[in-house]
């Protein structure tokens, strides 16, 4: 990936990420987040991690963001209006952010830490190499992830399922008709 493209995409990702927090309309924020994720996906693809890039598009931009949107609509989040905090708080926040940014700069500035470009082996980022990693080095992590997701599903169902004894709208409709 040519450096100028990398910088351009990186800047695009950062700008759209800023858009997520700067915009007041939650839908606009969400769309900006989709843009960020897409740009990151393109960055992945540009760095030869092709499968990961496309999976990112399918899973995040395609599915998870839509669920986010549903949540926003379900909770009926509106455009934020009015003051969002004290001026002092904002000042303190931006000052801290600036300090952290400076710190990060100093952390990353030393030349021995700067990114070294290496040539990845042939087939890097392909489905086969990804699968190879997942089923050898990261086998335990891979399997545990599935258990984690199962546990999360069980948990969310436990919290979200209709409590016994509460009104079931469908049952009510049946008895009415």
């Amino acid at each position, binding site marked *: 990936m040519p450096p100028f493209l990398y910088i351009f995409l990186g800047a695009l990702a950062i700008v759209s990420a800023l858009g997520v927090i700067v915009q007041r309309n939650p839908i606009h924020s969400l769309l900006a987040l989709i843009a960020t994720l897409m740009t990151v996906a393109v960055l992945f693809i540009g760095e030869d991690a*092709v499968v990961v890039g496309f999976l990112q*598009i399918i899973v995040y931009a*395609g599915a998870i*963001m*839509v669920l986010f949107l549903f949540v926003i609509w379900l909770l009926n989040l509106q455009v934020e209006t009015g003051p969002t905090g004290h001026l002092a708080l904002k000042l303190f926040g931006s000052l801290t952010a600036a300090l952290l940014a400076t710190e990060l700069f100093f952390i990353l500035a030393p030349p021995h830490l700067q990114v070294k470009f290496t040539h990845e082996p042939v087939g890097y980022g392909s489905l086969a190499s990804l699968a190879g990693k997942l089923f050898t080095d990261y086998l335990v992590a891979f399997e545990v992830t599935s258990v984690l997701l199962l546990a999360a599903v069980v948990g969310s169902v436990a919290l979200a399922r209709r409590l016994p004894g509460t009104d079931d709208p469908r049952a009510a409709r049946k008895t009415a008709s």
Partner: protein
Amino acid sequence: MQTLIQNLIASGAFGKNPPRDLVAAIVVFVMSLVVFLAIALPFAGIVTWVERRVWARIQSRVGPNRVGPQGFLQWLADGVKIVCKEDIVPDEADARLFKLAPFLVMLAFTLPWAVMPFSSSLILADLNVGILYMTAVTALTVVGVLMAGWASNNKWSLIGGVRSAAQIVSYEIPAGLSIFPVVLMTGTLSMQGIIRGQGWAPQHWFLFANPFTFVAANILYMSSLAEANRTPFDLPEAESELVAGFATEYSGWRYACFSMAEWGNLFIIGAIITTLFLGGWQFPHVTNNVVAMNVLELITFSVKVLFLVFLSMWIRATLPRVRIDQLMTACWKYFVPISFVNMIGTAVWVAIWPDGNVAMGYIMFAGAIALGAIFIQRVIYYLRRSQMEVYLNPTI
């Protein structure tokens, strides 16, 4: 593609030592434009006419037959009319997003053509993740649809958008899972690689490779119809309830974008299933002439795809619309679990017969022919019983 670019550079058409990337970009751009303007757009247009004619015949009507021979030019007339209409942006709409949405839908419709395997050489880019790319870019439709539904600031639009999004997100799961059996058998995601893994004869198609792929193909087809908002899954634009769903507020060429993408997607659905399960462009090697072979392959591929497109028209003309709860039940309680079974079943199958089981191909193909025969026999039986007059002439 690579050789084409090399030849172009060597021919000096771009001057001496042109930057390679630039030439490649221009070539890709021009070719994409050709594919899009010469294939995708006319297809989407013509298919609207074909669909109306097919419905008309199924419903014992005549259908559009005035503009041009047999009404063939109807799509052009409609197109010109719709483009000439005023492009209205409602006052209360979120104008920026309202205007952006049709472009996103068009984008999701355009991008898949890049990996469309028309023949052994006719393919813009044979990505090694082709089918994954296809799934990823078609998934973008949902963003455009949601954006359109929300930005219109209209209840019908919003409900249409939400329904569409729910439907697309849900059905993406069985659709994605139904691709895996084929990937398991070929070990590649490339469109051409998958097609090369099959033969021209039906018993070598993945459709008949084993019982699981047969089920997977059917699930993929039904899920794709749902993702494309086709009847019987056309709840997002159910005319009787939602006017035109997420596209209610659109007019002029922006509306045309939505409908064009919708009809054009039929081809993409057909192409995906043809590639994965129906042997793609595979044709017996009858001549050494590369051009002739490619033409034959192109015809094979198109015939298969168009058959699937016809099938979806047939379904649309005959089946009633499902309810939203039936839609979700079908997806989550039946398609998804069955898809998992397909995946595991195929994995076991591949483990037992790594090179495939040819006998199974013959058996399943024979079974499919038997099914078809039974179907035709029933049709004839009922036609006789109802003493219906049948006109086989397609033109009126």
